């Protein structure tokens, strides 16, 4: 078991912005259609990947929800995602990868929750993303990515 584990490199990081209103939605929001969910997931993971590969989280921060921005700085992000950056984990293939599995999109209060798994040639990428509506646009309020190198 240990030798199998040694072949895998796993990087898991979760950053959750605390949701202040969790009981009742402050306004009615609809779940975006499948195409829009797909764009949200891939675009978010590509922005995340750019940040990891460049070690610069300023664009990720600028695109995130104001709730996320209120709790994290680019420096905190760099520290949180150091394992991705340091190991040069490149998730670029996710932009065209097929989904291995995914859960039905749901609303948790005002937050849109998108969860699933991509498999690329090199990685299994599990994601758990939450988005809040800011000025009529879905913006990241939390991100949890688990990238595991697949055995060859």
């Amino acid at each position, binding site marked *: 078991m240990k030798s199998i584990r040694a072949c895998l490199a796993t990087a898991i990081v979760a950053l959750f912005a605390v949701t202040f209103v969790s009981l009742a939605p402050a306004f009615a929001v609809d779940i975006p259609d499948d195409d829009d969910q797909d764009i949200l997931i891939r675009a978010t993971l*590509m922005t995340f990947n750019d940040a990891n590969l*460049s070690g*610069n989280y*300023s*664009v990720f921060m*600028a695109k995130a929800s104001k709730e996320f921005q209120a709790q994290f700085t680019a420096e905190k992000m760099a520290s949180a995602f150091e394992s991705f950056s340091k190991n040069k984990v490149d998730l*670029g*293939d996710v*932009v*065209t990868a097929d989904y291995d599995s995914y859960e039905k999109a749901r609303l948790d209060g005002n937050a849109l929750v998108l969860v699933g798994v991509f498999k690329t040639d090199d990685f299994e990428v599990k994601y758990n993303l939450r988005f809040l509506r800011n000025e009529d646009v879905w913006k990241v309020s939390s991100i949890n990515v688990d990238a595991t190198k697949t055995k060859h």
Partner: protein
Amino acid sequence: MKSFRANLVTCVVALFALAIAWVLPAFAADIPDDDSQDVLIRTTLLTFNDANMTNNYAIMLARSSKQFQSQFTADKLTTAFEKFRTNKLFFEEVATADYDSSEKAVIDKEGALVLVGVFKTDDLQVKYNLRFDDAWKMLGINVDATKKKQ
């Protein structure tokens, strides 16, 4: 014709790093397979789009080739791509959009990989002409985004 044009917003910007060596290829690149080309095109355009959406070109610059970095600064890119921001020509849909057309990938006389094509999203037509070095880092970018008539 004028009223038709008034409905369109077009923005074309080209930034190509000059190749120092003209005679011999500066790089010895093989053409990547179709899947890798697809990843290169979409990730490059998404990085470019992120830069335009946030008015922050530092990451686009950091991910580009040394030749590109030696010729352009984040400030220069901010100026060059101003029209994308002022006209809100943003295209995250390129992550999943179908190609409207694309040319066969070529290695040009300087040894750079050249990828050219067109995406159509619900709102925009996005023409791209991208050049990459042998490490698939961006050498040049030319994007023409046109708003469709509603």
